[in-house]
């Protein structure tokens, strides 16, 4: 248990090290999630449009 506490304490710099990693994690995963959501949305819209066109041709 002491090992984990020492790890989390980061030699007394926990207040700076963990937020730095946290910011990177939040920003990059946020960007990835948003990109993925927009991609899914764009495929759904495109599929719907293509389906609507097909019967007329």
């Amino acid at each position: 248990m002491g090992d984990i506490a020492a790890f989390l304490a980061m030699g007394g710099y926990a207040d700076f090290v963990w937020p730095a990693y946290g910011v990177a994690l939040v920003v990059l995963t946020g960007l990835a999630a948003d990109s993925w959501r927009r991609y899914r949305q764009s495929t759904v819209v495109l599929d719907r449009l293509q389906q609507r066109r097909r019967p007329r041709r």
Partner: protein
Amino acid sequence: MINWLANPARFTRISARALPWCGWTAAVVLCVGLFWSLVLAPPDYQQGDTVRIMFIHVPAAWMALNIYLFVAVASAVALVWRHPLAEIAARAAAPMGAAFTFVCLATGSLWGRPMWGTWWVWDARLTSVLILFFLYLGYIALVNAFDDPSRGGKAGSILALVGVVNLPIIKFSVDWWNTLHQPASVMRIGGPRIDISMLVPLLIMTAGFSLFFLALLMLRMRTVLNERKAGTLRLNAGVAPAPRPARERAMPAHPGRS
């Protein structure tokens, strides 16, 4: 290679296969890199455990610069050769560049507070990176400000190319001016001046960020291609004028005024 990939249909086919590979490799490499950075790497003899911020901060800074270079080169290709994918690549990459620049600034600030005693100083390195961040935001705002994506792309490309002047300023700011920021210790003449135990996680994190960038770049380019295709379909379904060939559509609507 670039020429060969510049065909949208071919890009769609290849990226569909490369994307999952790239994404999962990025996840694995980043996990290894994080473990190495947080656990295996030793604390610095002067900076203690704050040195671990470097494993995020420095790769993020490299990504910020390299993605800007990528956006600028893609913009130049889009302006000069009118490659259909080049402008889309620049557009897709810019938000990632902004994100990495933000991460670089935020982690730098969190590192500066315990080591320099201040969150921020208006010196050459920090200010020029802040300008890089604003250049990214300006580019993103500009390309989205036009209804016609080709006009927005053109305006953004010009901004991206003008902003390239900032890159050497960032790179050499630590040599040209007095600053709190340390000079380069990896990308320097005479080889890196950093211990191997810290160089390894630094390079792993850089590889992870690069793969992450590549995967998201493909995903975001596919999104733009989908959106453009949907836009064309919608236009054709309505009372819009007869579809013009893609080549003609890339030309300015009012040649006399452009």
